[in-house]
């Protein structure tokens, strides 16, 4: 057993209100520079929808992630044999038009326009060329346009949805959508790292954060094509790729990443998971139907004495083990089993999990009266009639397996029913208890899920492990000497003269 720790995340989609505060917090800190205007390390998509970059989930176009070929795991877009041909022209690279061309407005025209009878206008200009542009797309161009035949209909996840369900999904009475906030998943088997010809990308051993060394990146662009989630971005100005760094400078000082900290709906959780690094490749090679359980098996119980012993032996710090024991992520993913990884069929083993949305579960219109179906008899109303088809959610989170998705939704619904019976009382407690039993949960667990979902404190949502960055310098020199010489950090010393 080779125990490692990973800073992992859960996003609770039922709580996301699509306000984009996370995106803005991130942008203001990391991507407001030239060449990064089009990048959104954190973005929020409307689902069903095509996302950003457009149709990033369509791997027949982008060839992101891994595939099993024989007994081997190989990248879909590149590899040792294909690096030469890819390096001059990467056939799977998305271009700026797949994202959008960033723009601003010529605001000075508002002030400089000569007096006249018309209101002056500020025309849009490209942030790349500085020329006037006709804006054709933006990072959230299909925001809240779920029912639209132009955008939502092109969502790759709709391929498993029957034509009838598809019609219903777009019928105005049933129109429904949810938000899908995305950041880098800081995968256990990152395709971006494996694809980099220069070896500029790496995963940090202590916390699993995936980073790009800006001095080693040479703009070969392999990572952009290889990441199936399209979460590495090419800076067209500096000729370097950049990606979400999980705000590691904040984490190292005990603060939650900006997008987590600013989340209005408090949908985000962060904590450490311990996992067995020796099993990564075997798990990533499992047949698609076993991937969800496989990844769950990879995660180790931080309270198991054998795991603790192995973790100590692998050099996991005592404080990190202690942090893993309090991790909300472990509860969501491993104990309650209600958080699922996005598109695990890409085989990168993402470490960002999602609690799928219940939404208004059912809705129907009879005699021109719209009914929001939540009466007691309909608690376990067949999920086939949910407003977002199960097959759609299954395509996102369980490699198309509807049974696994039903399990999660049933549990979430049972918790809701139980709390409603307890607090509102319009549902008989007997019905609620029966619901809990059917959903493979107990009163105690339902109470825990409720508390962690509805009432968690800041410290319960973000259990940030001490990252012991102060120890990093020990590999090179005495920390006290270093502090006196340059302050903490690895930047150039404040040296006088040549």
């Amino acid at each position: 057993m080779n125990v490692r720790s990973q800073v992992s995340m859960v996003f609770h989609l039922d709580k996301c209100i699509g306000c984009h505060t996370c995106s803005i917090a991130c942008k203001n800190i990391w991507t407001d520079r030239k060449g990064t205007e089009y990048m959104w390390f954190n973005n929020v998509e409307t689902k069903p929808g095509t996302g950003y970059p457009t149709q990033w989930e369509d791997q027949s176009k982008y060839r992101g992630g891994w595939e099993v070929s024989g007994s081997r795991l190989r990248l879909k877009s590149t590899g040792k044999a294909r690096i030469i041909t890819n390096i001059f022209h990467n056939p799977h690279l998305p271009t700026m038009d797949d994202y959008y061309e960033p723009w601003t407005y010529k605001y000075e025209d508002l002030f400089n326009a000569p007096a006249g009878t018309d209101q002056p206008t500020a025309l849009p200009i490209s942030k790349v060329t500085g020329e006037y542009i006709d804006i054709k797309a933006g990072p959230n161009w299909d925001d809240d346009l779920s029912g639209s035949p132009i955008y939502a209909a092109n969502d790759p996840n709709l391929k498993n949805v029957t034509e009838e369900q598809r019609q219903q999904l777009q019928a105005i009475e049933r129109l429904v959508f949810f938000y899908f906030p995305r950041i880098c998943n800081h995968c256990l088997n990152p395709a971006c790292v494996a694809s980099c010809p220069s070896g500029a990308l790496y995963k940090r051993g202590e916390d699993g954060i995936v980073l790009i060394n800006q001095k080693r990146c040479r703009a070969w662009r392999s990572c952009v094509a290889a990441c199936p989630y399209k979460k590495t971005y090419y800076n067209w100005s500096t000729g370097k790729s950049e990606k979400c760094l999980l705000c590691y400078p904040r984490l190292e000082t005990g603060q939650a990443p900006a997008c987590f900290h600013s989340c209005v709906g408090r949908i985000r959780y962060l904590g450490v998971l311990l996992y067995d690094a020796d099993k990564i490749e075997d798990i990533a090679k499992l047949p698609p139907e076993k991937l969800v359980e496989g990844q769950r098996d990879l995660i180790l119980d931080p309270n198991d004495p054998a795991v603790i012993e192995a973790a100590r032996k692998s050099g996991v710090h005592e404080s990190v083990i202690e942090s893993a024991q309090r991790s909300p992520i472990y509860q969501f993913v491993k104990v309650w089993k209600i958080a699922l990884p996005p598109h695990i069929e890409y085989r990168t083993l993402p470490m960002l999990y999602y609690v799928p949305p219940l939404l208004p579960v059912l809705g129907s219109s009879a005699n021109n009266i719209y009914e929001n179906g939540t009466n007691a008899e309909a608690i376990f109303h067949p999920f086939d009639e949910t407003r977002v088809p199960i097959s759609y959610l299954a395509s996102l989170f369980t490699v198309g397996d509807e049974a696994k998705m039903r399990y999660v939704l049933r549990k979430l619904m049972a918790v809701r029913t139980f709390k409603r019976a307890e607090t509102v009382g319009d549902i008989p407690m007997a019905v609620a208890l029966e619901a809990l039993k059917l959903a493979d949960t107990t009163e105690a667990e339902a109470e825990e899920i409720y508390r962690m979902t509805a009432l968690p404190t800041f410290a319960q949502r973000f259990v940030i492990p001490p990252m012991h960055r102060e120890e990093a310098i020990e590999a090179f020199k005495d920390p006290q000497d270093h502090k006196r010489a340059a302050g903490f950090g690895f930047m150039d010393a404040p040296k006088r003269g040549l």
Partner: protein
Amino acid sequence: MNSLLQAETGGLPINDVLFVVTPYVVLALFFTMTIWRYVKEKFSYSSYSSQFLENSYQFWGSVPWHYGILSLLAGHLIAFALPRELLWWNSVPARLYIIELSALIFAVVTLIGLVNLIIRRAIDSRIRAVTSKMDVIILLLLLAQVGTGIWVALTARWGSSWFAAVVTPYLYSLFTFSPDASAVVNLPWSIKLHILGAYLIFAVFPFTRLVHVLVVPNHYLWRRTQVVMWNKRKAQGAEQ
């Protein structure tokens, strides 16, 4: 004969300046500036790919250019490193024709690629936005160099043989610090321009995006698939 001595005794010093002094100045500049840039300005070592901004025309420029120029440079290197073997190979006319013809084809491919890259850079507004002065200078120098190369190939036949017989000894004399340019100065101007063009390109090389040639990712072929770095442990490849 020592050509420097000849210069002192009244011969034209211009040839010595061009073919004896220049290469040493250029080499000194090349090595000091590339190393300085690597040490001090490592962030600027990049291919500055613009495929992200324009994808389709890039294929018809970058691909023929790279395959063409790499083949041509390999040809020059063979003539420099293995002159006797090359002359032996060329002793049969059919084999000489094969070499000459394939070199010319590669030269045309290179030219097509380069012209496409120049046109693309000129007509696409996004690409113009990421074009620096050095990009323009190096593109024009490369165009001139490919142009004189093709001119040489068409006018001074059997270059693969006379390169090995005339230019290789000259280059050897430079590298062994006993410079002798006497054979080269009598070559036609097309060839002399091609040689001087090469020096010029070497001189500006450290200041252009061409430095990406020096950091081609050779270790990708044998490194482990995943890269994990530790604060306290030594950097290592891990899992897989």
